[in-house]
């Protein structure tokens, strides 16, 4: 049941911020919503209900490293798609590996 709610609430928040990103202009401002705390809001709400606030706070601490990795990922997207003019679908998917490496690198350096 917990997993079902996670899926439903996560899908709802992500869709909500995605629509905001679609309708708001200028494009650079709409882009802010690409890094909105949609998954975080859904996950933290349900985690607090099932595991408590301390457990959710530990997740939030790790999220700082995830956000730093997201920053590196988006900067790399700007460079490879905007400056090097490589294909957007390929690069946005391919660079997810960079997010993974950065996130786990930061975890290994500061959180382990």
């Amino acid at each position, binding site marked *: 049941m917990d997993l079902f709610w996670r899926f439903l609430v996560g899908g709802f928040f992500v869709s909500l911020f995605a629509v905001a990103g679609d309708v708001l202009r200028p494009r650079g401002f709409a882009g802010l919503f690409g890094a909105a705390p949609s998954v975080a809001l859904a996950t933290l709400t349900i985690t607090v209900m099932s595991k408590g606030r301390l457990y959710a706070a530990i997740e939030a601490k790790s*999220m700082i490293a995830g956000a730093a990795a997201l920053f590196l990922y988006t900067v790399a997207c700007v460079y490879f798609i905007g400056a090097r003019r490589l294909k957007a679908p390929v690069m946005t998917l391919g660079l997810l590996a960079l997010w993974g490496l950065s996130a786990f690198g930061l975890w290994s350096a500061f959180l382990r």
Partner: protein
Amino acid sequence: MGIERFWIVVGVLALSAMIIRISLSSLRRTRWQDYLIRFLLGGSVSLITGMIAKEFGPVIGGLFLAFPAIFPASATLIDEQEREKKREAGISVTLRGRFAVALDARGAALGAIALAAFALLVWQELPRHETAWVLSAAMALWLITAVLLWRLRKLHVYVSRRGRRNA
């Protein structure tokens, strides 16, 4: 925060509100399948994050709270929509889609800095205060930080262009 700083923040936000507009035409261009894909992706990432936290603990699970869940799907959609607009205008080869995605990613980079502020507030305040209050305050902090960074970025571009013109 001093009262002067508070009014500066309010002023910057009000100025931003004047520049920001709503374009409903992009909603008409978006197919229902695109919304479904993003709903499924968002739901799946939340689900997987919960499963990872259960299996490997909250420290690893927490990393995935900032996973770029829908960015690749949104970027592909923006790229397609921009190319479609050009095709309708009779232009078959264009880089406009890629530039639009890069602009979107630049906004997301600023949003990511604001996301770190969101996480910091939740980490510090959640053990001591009510969940609804902390998440609402963190959400407000994300929005204010993101908008302020975006305005600062626009101001920086304006000042550097003016400086180049005057040089």
